[in-house]
Each structure stands twice: as structure tokens, then as C-alpha cells.
């Protein structure tokens, strides 16, 4: 019972362990112990979810043997023809392939599966990711658009499309996709912050100075909404401080800057609080991502330097 409980509690504390290399490593180190224990044969929903997570994290850290075993057990339980198992098998093959030719054959396999059964969404998504790893970004965008034409409620795909457009520099389309995500998940504060970031970044390629200040103000509004929804959202406060700082710099002698300055001050206070409590390892404040806290500290120090000059 012990290891199953431990893994479940670990996953509840770190709900997306693959975003962070250290959590992926922790998880994959537990894999051999879990696989050889007796609890891994329990047939509950949680067990299989753990299998999936272990499979993904083992592939990430290179533990191919444990990954193979996880995949084997999943396909024994759910059958090789299940849509999800097919997608995970494809993922395993992609990760363990050694040459471009092997990847192309996996891609061909996906196309064949989709020809037989066009509703297999996990395989469609795998195909899109494979196209991206092969470097065929435009094909990936086309495939994503066709996926979204029959399933416009898939927030994950809209967010993915938005990041693809962003890498191509198509900021307006990227914001369009993020707005679609908002229509599906209206309280997604991270999406508000992301739109703020994209607006701010797109302004740096914009034309005249009025465009830039307008873009700054819009970005500020998005960041403000994100922290309105989530009081201690580090990214939101960081964006707010950064863009308000830039706006103040851009319009130095304007009388209408009162609100912007108070926002800047508020953002600085919050960031200082987060950084100091995180660094003192206070209980309840350790949930932040360390890299983000360091970036926040950097921003605070830079602004202090500027003011003291």
C-alpha cells in the first residue's frame, strides 16, 4: 500500500510533474519499485493513471526499460486497440527511435490509423506533435486547425495552436486562439497573463509610439485581471511590474500616470513579499517555481538599481 499511496500523494502535490525536470526524475526513480511491488496489479482507476504518468516520466529521463514494462501492462489491461494505448505506444516509439526514418514510419502508422478511424483524437494529437518534432511546423498547424474544426471545445489544442502561431510571429492569431481558450475556461488566470505577455511582446514589433503605449495599457489590463483572479500569481505580478515600469518610462512627464504608478508599487510589494518568504523557506510559501522566483528577484533588483542611479 505504501508506494501506491506515496505516488498518489506525490502526484496530488505536483499535478503536472513533467513540467519540471526534478519532479520527473523523482517520479521515474520510483518506477522500478512500483512495478515490482504487488500494488501495481490493483485494478483501480488511480493505478492506471499512475502507470501513465510513470511511463511519461521514465521516457523523459531515459529509463526505457521501466517505460516498456509500463506500456506492456497498460496494453495488457486495455487491449492494444484502445485509442489511448495506441497513442502511448506511438509516443514510446517516437521517444525510443534512433533515426529520422523510424520517425517517418511512425508518422505513416499514424496516418493509416487515422484513415481507418478518423475520430481517434489521441492519435491525431500525437501526429501533430510528431510533425512538430520533425520540424514540419506548417503541416502541424494545418493538422491542428482541422482538429479544431471538428472539436472546437478542446482548450488544450487551442493553447497549442496559440503557441505555434507565437513561434511563427503571428501574434494576432495567437491572441485569437487564447481568446478561444478563455471562452471555454473563463477563469483561466494563466491565459489572461499569457495574452498580456503576447500583447506586450507584439508591441515591440509594432509601428509608432502611440501603438506601443496602447499595447502596454492593454497588456496591463490583462495582467491585472489575472491577479484579480488569483492573488498570488507570480507571473501576473511580474508582468504587471514589468509593463507598468516600461509604461512609466515611455511617458515620463504625463500627469495621468497615477494609477500606473500605484499598480507598479503594488506589484513590487507583492513580488518582494513572495521572494522574501520563499527564500526564507517559510511554510506555505514554497509552492512557487524556483526559476520564476529568481526572475522576480532579478527584476526587483534591476528596478532598484535604476531608481538609485
Amino acid at each position, binding site marked *: 500500500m505504501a508506494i501506491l499511496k506515496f505516488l498518489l500523494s506525490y502526484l496530488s502535490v505536483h499535478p503536472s510533474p513533467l513540467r519540471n525536470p526534478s519532479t520527473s526524475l523523482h517520479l521515474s526513480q520510483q518506477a522500478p519499485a512500483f512495478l515490482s511491488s504487488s500494488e501495481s496489479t490493483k485494478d483501480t482507476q488511480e493505478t492506471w493513471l499512475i502507470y501513465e504518468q510513470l511511463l511519461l516520466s521514465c521516457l523523459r529521463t531515459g529509463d526505457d526499460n521501466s517505460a516498456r514494462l509500463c506500456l506492456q501492462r497498460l496494453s495488457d489491461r486495455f487491449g492494444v486497440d484502445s485509442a489511448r494505448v495506441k497513442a502511448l505506444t506511438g509516443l514510446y516509439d517516437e521517444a525510443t527511435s534512433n533515426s529520422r526514418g523510424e520517425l517517418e514510419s511512425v508518422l505513416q502508422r499514424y496516418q493509416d490509423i487515422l484513415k481507418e478511424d*478518423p*475520430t481517434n483524437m489521441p492519435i491525431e494529437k500525437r501526429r501533430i506533435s510528431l510533425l512538430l518534432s520533425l520540424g514540419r511546423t506548417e503541416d502541424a498547424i494545418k493538422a491542428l486547425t482541422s482538429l479544431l*474544426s*471538428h*472539436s*472546437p*471545445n478542446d482548450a488544450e489544442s487551442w493553447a497549442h495552436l496559440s503557441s505555434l502561431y507565437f513561434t511563427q510571429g503571428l501574434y494576432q492569431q495567437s491572441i*485569437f486562439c487564447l*481568446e478561444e481558450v*478563455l*471562452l*471555454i475556461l*473563463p477563469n483561466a488566470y494563466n491565459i489572461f497573463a499569457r495574452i498580456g505577455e503576447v500583447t506586450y511582446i507584439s508591441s515591440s514589433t509594432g509601428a509608432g509610439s502611440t501603438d506601443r503605449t496602447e499595447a502596454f495599457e492593454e497588456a*496591463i*489590463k*490583462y495582467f*491585472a*485581471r489575472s*491577479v*484579480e483572479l488569483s492573488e498570488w500569481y507570480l507571473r501576473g505580478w511580474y508582468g504587471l511590474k514589468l509593463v507598468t515600469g516600461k509604461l512609466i518610462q515611455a511617458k515620463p512627464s504625463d500627469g495621468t500616470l497615477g*494609477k500606473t504608478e*500605484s*499598480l507598479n508599487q*503594488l506589484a513590487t510589494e507583492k513580488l518582494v513579499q513572495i521572494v522574501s518568504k520563499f527564500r526564507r523557506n517559510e511554510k506555505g510559501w514554497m509552492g512557487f517555481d524556483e526559476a520564476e522566483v529568481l526572475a522576480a528577484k532579478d527584476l526587483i533588483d534591476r528596478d532598484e538599481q535604476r531608481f538609485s542611479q
Partner: protein
Amino acid sequence: MATVQAQTILRDPQLFYWILFPITVVMILTGVLRHYVTVLMQSDPKKQELNAISEQRNLLRGVNLRTNHNQIPLSSFIARKNYLVAAYNRGDFLKDPENKGKPPANPMTDPAGMDQMMNMLKGNMAMMVPQTLIMGWINAFFSGFVIMKLPFPLTLRFKSMLQSGVATRDLDVRWVSSLSWYFLNLFGLRSIFTFILGNENSADQMAQQMQQMNPAGGNAMFAPGQDPNKMFLAEAENLEVVGGQHEWVLDGVVDRLLKSRV
């Protein structure tokens, strides 16, 4: 009669062991059995074709736009609204564009509809057969005497139902036969079933009744007998109506933020 005197009847304490207990145990066991039989009898959800899925999800997209339109700026909302309204009116997402004007599919002939009706029928059967059997069993074995006294008073009309085997005129309605113990159990064992079988168990007839009464929330678009074209047109109208009031959530957000935090 001037005052109703409290009527007391002396009861054999063995009543508990031989009647109340067995009826309850039998009902719990049949409930558990019914749950597992229902689970086993349910057929897998039928796979739908791509254009059917596309039809349902694009309708949902219109609903999402209507519900969350305040999250995006007015210009974005108007652009999307115009596109969707035009598409709905043209019938772009329809599964069978030729059937646009025709009446909705009859559940008898449409295979997808048949499946759903069979499922409902099976569920109802699983409910009714055990109920009838147990009632017959109780009437056969446990009739002809009163078993307990209800703690609350009832009107005379219940006498015939609750004192089925005992035909006396003066006996207080509070004295009831074992059939009423069956009815009490029927409604009361729900929490025990939740405890044993987890939350969504099929032994729960209350949930089934509520589902039947609930005026087609999510089931409307997926049940047969609904004309998708009409639903698209209705959704297009709804979108037009909503377009009048748009309050972008980002208007005044800075003021709200400063007011709440400083």
C-alpha cells in the same frame, strides 16, 4: 368519539428478529444485486462518426460563446458571433445536410436512438422486477398482522394501504403492517447503498426519477428525435440576442484591483 385514546398492543419482541430484520437484509441484498446487474447489462457507448461529433461540438461552441462572451473584447466577440450565426443559418455543421427540412429521425428507425431507448428500458426493468417480486413475497408471507407503530399520525385514508391484511375499524392508523416497513426501507436504504456501493449506484431509484423529470439538460442535443437544424437556428437567435449587452470583464479592472488591494 370524544377523545382518541392511545392504543397499545403488546408485541412479541421476536418480531424484530423474524420480520423487520429479514425484510431489510433482503432489500439490501437485492439492491446490491440490482446495481451489479445494471452495470453488467449496460452496453458500451456507441462510437460516433466524425461529422456527428463535429455537429455536437460546434453547437457547444456557440453555447460557450454565449455564456462567456464577457471575457473577450467586443470586437472579437462580434467577429465570432457573425461567423457562427452565418454558419448556423447556412447549416455548415450539419451531419446530413440533405435532411435539413425533414422531420427529426424517429427513434424506432434510427439505430442510434434505439440503443439509447434500450438502455433506458433495461434500467427500468432492473428497477421494477425486483420491486414487484419483493412486494409479492411480503404479501404472501408477512400479511395479516400489524408490526409496528409509526411515530407520526396519519389520516384514515392510509388505512387500507398500510394495514392491508388487518380489517379492523377502530385500530389507529399508526399501527401498520409489514408492507409499510417495505416502503420505509425503499426510501431509507439510499444512504446505505451510497455507503456500500459508492456514490453513483444504480440501486438508487431517486436519481432515476430525477433524471426522468429533469427537462433535458445535456441530453437534448444527443437524444434522437431532436432536429439539429432547429437547434442551430435557435442558438443563432440566442447569439443575436446576447450581442446587445457586452461588458468586457477587463473594463475597470485596474480600478477594481487597486480598490481591493490598497
